[in-house]
């Protein structure tokens, strides 16, 4: 395969806390190719959002820092570039939308101004052009009467509308990568579908790649070509969406699928146990305490095993050499 647009190698992100350093992302490898949508899946606190913030270099300071690894974007390591260069990347080449549309827009500026701001910063448009472009962006994300709504303040809009504005803002400079951190979690189901459709459509139109962070496998099925499953800061399985849905392999992924509520089944099937605290992860596989297939080897860190072409699992269960 050709060189990935975004290539994360061995990313380790830590937070310093009163109880000592915590590793929120532990050795993440991730490749996002041009035009692709990659789903980053896992439950709350597994490090998805921290990984995204690491890419943008927007980790909360001074607690969070990238301890190791490389984040190659078009060949350059974003962890090495100057802050000024990074600002030219943010919002311009890589943009990001967040989970909470209700709080992610500044309440004291009009939505038009907030779109306009990015345009003026990166594309050096005149006032007039940037204003016109902001209207075009609102039109693009399907806001009716964009020329009038441009002067609205965020509180005058619904959650779905605001997320559309966020998307308009993120896409205004035609980025190569958009990171969407749980873009539909805070929205109700009908709006969710609209927003996902919108993202997919705009991805085609603009020709960008999307890193979609979600805990919702339904969202993944609808939008992603590739999927990476994370658990407790580590990647545990990566595959094409088709492979993952047809032949999920990692016990955690299996658990995730089993726990999706089904209409014909009155009982819910949660994954037993709880997510281990990042302060004291067990030696070896982080999932071992909740795993039905646990074996002696699980006390050692499992290797990556390719169980079918481009379908990788990080689990001893598939280790044919030692079994």
């Amino acid at each position: 395969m050709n060189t990935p647009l975004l290539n994360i190698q061995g990313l380790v992100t830590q937070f310093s806390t009163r109880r000592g350093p915590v590793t929120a992302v532990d050795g993440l490898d991730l490749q996002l190719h041009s035009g692709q949508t990659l789903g980053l899946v896992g439950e709350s606190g597994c490090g998805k959002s921290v990984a995204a913030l690491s890419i943008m270099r927007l980790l909360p300071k001074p607690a969070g820092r990238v301890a190791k690894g490389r984040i190659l974007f078009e060949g350059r390591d974003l962890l090495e570039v100057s802050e000024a260069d990074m600002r030219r990347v943010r919002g311009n080449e890589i943009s990001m939308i967040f989970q909470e549309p209700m709080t992610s827009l500044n309440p004291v500026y009009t939505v038009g101004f907030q779109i306009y701001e990015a345009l003026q910063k990166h594309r050096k448009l005149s006032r007039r052009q940037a204003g016109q472009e902001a209207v075009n962006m609102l039109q693009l994300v399907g806001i009716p009467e964009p020329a009038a709504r441009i002067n609205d303040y965020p509180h005058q809009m619904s959650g779905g509308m605001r997320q559309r504005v966020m998307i308009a803002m993120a896409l205004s400079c035609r980025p190569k990568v958009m990171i969407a951190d749980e873009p539909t979690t805070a929205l109700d189901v009908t709006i969710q579908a609209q927003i996902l459709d919108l993202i997919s459509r705009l991805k085609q139109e603009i020709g960008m790649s999307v890193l979609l962070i979600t805990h919702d496998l339904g969202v993944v099925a609808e939008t992603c070509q590739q999927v990476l499953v994370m658990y407790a800061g580590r990647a545990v399985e990566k595959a094409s969406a088709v492979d993952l849905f047809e032949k999920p392999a990692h016990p955690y992924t299996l658990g995730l699928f089993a726990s999706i509520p089904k209409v014909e089944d009155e009982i819910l099937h949660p994954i037993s146990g709880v997510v281990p605290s990042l302060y004291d992860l067990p030696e070896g596989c982080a999932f071992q305490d909740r795993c039905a297939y646990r074996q002696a080897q699980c006390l050692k860190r499992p290797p990556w095993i390719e169980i079918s072409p481009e379908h990788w699992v990080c689990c001893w269960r598939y280790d044919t050499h030692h079994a």
Partner: protein
Amino acid sequence: MPIDYLIRRLVHLLIILFGVSVLVFLMLRMIPGDPAQLLLGEFANPEELAGLRSQLGLDKSLFTQYWIYLKNVLQGDLGISIRTEIPVAQEIFVRLLATLELSLAAMVIATFLGVAAGVISAVKQYSIFDYASMFLALVGVSMPIFWLGLMLIYLFSVKFSVLPMMGRLSMGLDVPSWSGLVVVDSLLAGNVPAFLDSLKHLLLPALTLATIPTAIVARITRSSMLEIQNQDYVRTARAKGLSNLVVILRHTLRNAFLPVVTVLGLNLGLLLGGAVLTETIFSWPGLGRYVVNSLMARDYAAVQGCILIFATLMVMINLLVDFLYVVLDPRIRVHD
């Protein structure tokens, strides 16, 4: 801001002023001390006292006295000072302008210095600057004003003789009285020496008066900034690739400003009415000193006039603060 809202607020102002006038009128007459006695001295004979009382209208019933007072006030007549025998309105006007000059200067200092210190402290939280400025702020609010004023006089006027210790303008300099604010008038007249001289006179008292508000504004700005810094929309602003300065000033400070405006308004009100100590130390011919002296002499008309003016100013400042809220935060709208 709709006109009917403004009208409603003005009606409120009238009601407040009526209440204040009644309260002040009654309270003044409840405190011991007879104006006639104070004017004529300890050894005045009863006939003279009675004569003066009837001349001042003090022999009438309280209700009648208030009624006369109210009728006069409504015609713009605040009465005549029994100490100076000059119309109270005239006396207050001149002194109010002196106080206004001092308070506004102090507010300018407090706003710029306080906000700047607060912003830097918040952005560089837990840095040396943060600790130092917050320590200074604590010292600032705890320091007795009269002591600070005297120390400043000692240091800058006595020891180094770089700044004058009293008054508004040096002898021999003359400035036309257009606005009543010497600094502004000298500038308007193009009189540079007088302008610089008046600034020098203003500096020490304004610094003294500004100390407490500066400290309060710095602390409020810091805590408000710290709260806003963690908001999602600040992260959004960073994710757009905006520069640090734009993120701090445009996306954080603007939102953090509401509590600061409240505190600034409250402090301006306090400064206008409470600059007594500073005015006394620096012999500043302001309203604060005038009220205290009038009170000592039981100069009813003067005290009543001053309190009415204070109340009016306070209500106006509140109105201004409410107006600024609406300007600063579009979510705040006037509700019927």
